[in-house]
């Protein structure tokens, strides 16, 4: 019964994620007007038959922006997660495999990055790059930065795992039979890191989604007119009360649902049962 309940929650979470991704991919058909088209005669309008979530202050259809923003956030966060996982595999995996001074140096650098609060690190690196770039470049820069900076905690886990694989009996036996260097790492150590890499990849996605949202609200994320969950949530800044325009909370609701779904997919069976 318990196993059935756990699988039910996970299946439900997977279904929700699939639905949201499908809707965002169908944005071109569901919102043919696009995310940048301005309906100036109905600027800042409440929801209607023509604009399901109303329009923003310059008349852009909010429903279209939510769909396209979801697409950007949900497609690029996994891309950034893939980049960070690959970097973690390279740095952490190699450090754990080589051991000794390599491992100590790599982990010292990792600790230096980890000692910085994540948001401080992000805004510092973002400030180093030009802020007045084109919207498309801002999307690439934001997610590339997340991918390039988000590998540290995964590298620590991978370093420990690679060190234990290196010291395992089968690797010793392989080494004794003459397999060494790169071949030993690529053929025998790396495949055994795959489950950890897979877990780190999935863990990174909601972290990057939330980070992008934080950067977007602070005005350091994806640039206008390109929508993302971060830039859509920036609209909440202008609210006077929560009940005033509840439709403006739809991007937040969607983000919470998606991140919660990821939590359910990733959580251990006992946590789900709780």
């Amino acid at each position, binding site marked *: 019964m318990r196993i059935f309940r756990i699988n039910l929650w996970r299946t439900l979470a997977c279904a929700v994620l699939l639905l949201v991704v499908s809707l965002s991919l169908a944005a071109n058909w569901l919102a043919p007007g696009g995310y940048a088209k301005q309906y100036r005669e109905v600027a800042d309008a409440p929801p209607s038959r023509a604009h399901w979530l109303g329009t923003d202050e310059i008349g852009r259809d909010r429903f279209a922006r939510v769909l396209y923003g979801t697409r950007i956030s949900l497609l690029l966060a996994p891309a950034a997660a893939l980049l960070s996982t690959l970097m973690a595999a390279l740095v952490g995996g190699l450090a754990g495999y080589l051991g000794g001074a390599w491992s100590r140096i790599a982990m010292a650098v990792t600790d*230096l990055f980890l000692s*910085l609060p994540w948001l*401080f*690190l992000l805004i*510092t690196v973002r400030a180093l790059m030009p802020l007045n770039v084109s919207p498309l470049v801002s999307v690439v820069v934001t997610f590339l930065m997340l991918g390039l900076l988000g590998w540290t905690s995964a590298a620590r886990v991978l370093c420990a795992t690679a060190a234990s694989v290196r010291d395992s009996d089968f690797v010793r036996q392989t080494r004794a039979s003459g397999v060494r260097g790169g071949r030993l790492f690529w053929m025998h150590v790396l495949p055994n890191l795959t489950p950890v890499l897979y877990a780190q990849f999935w863990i990174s996605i909601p972290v990057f989604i*939330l980070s992008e949202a934080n950067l977007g609200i602070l005005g*350091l994320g994806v640039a206008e007119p390109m929508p993302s969950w971060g830039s859509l*949530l920036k609209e909440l*800044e202008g*609210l006077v009360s929560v009940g005033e325009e509840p439709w403006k909370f739809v991007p937040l609701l969607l983000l919470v649902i998606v991140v919660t779904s990821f939590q359910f997919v990733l959580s251990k069976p006992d946590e789900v049962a709780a």
Partner: protein
Amino acid sequence: MLTRIARHGFALVATVLLGALLSAILVRLAPGFDADEEELDPHLNAQSVQALRQVRLEQHNIFRFYFHSLERAVHGDLGTSISLGQPVTTLLRQRAPLTLRLVSIGLLLSWAVAMGLALSAAGLRVAAYDALTTAISGAFLCIPAAVLALLSVLWNVPGALAIGLIVFPNVYRYARNLLAKAYSLPHIITARAKGVGELRILFWHVVPVVAPQLLAVAGISVSIAVGAAIPVEALCGLPGLGQLAWQAALARDLPLLMNITILVTLVTLLANSSADVIGQMLRGQEA
């Protein structure tokens, strides 16, 4: 123990020096470093402009630039903010107390709520209550910190409480798991079966087991709280270090941003090292 403290001290100094070098490199290589708006001042004559260019030229060598910055930092001069035109030391001195107060109160609140909920969930052992507290903390974990800051503005909630709400789910998640694991240890189950009181079990058997790990979580929570200070201060209009860092980022005021980052790194490292040393002391006593 002294060796451990010395090792942490060495790591702190090394990190600050390495962080400063990294900062110097990044500031030096950032686009626009060579551009100086002062040169546009019509009051400056050719000689003054030439002198300014000479100063810039001397900074071209990264290592010279680094050692020069380090030398000035030793004498308490952290440079001048490009965007605000004030000495960085003065700005840090003005802004740090508010951030320190917000982060301290936020941490106290988050720990009080998280430990209260985790202890009650572990003590009551009612599945529905445990699910409810986990759901509450999980919900806060899924909301971006900046949105919590915006909501705190809407509901007129103090900034410290917003920081507390951002830190709370992270502390709760670890505390709940640690306490659940501790309460399932054989000697604690035996003590319960023998009718030992809940408070005695908590303070005599559970706390010694979980204290070192909770201290490690305390170190991490400082880092989370300091990070949360950026959106909270920036969006709630609180003039602390977080807001200063955000303003510096928007204005690309790299010297100011780098100094704040190094200061924050130092604080978080100090918190983590202290937690580690105290945790080791407790483990030593236990052994």
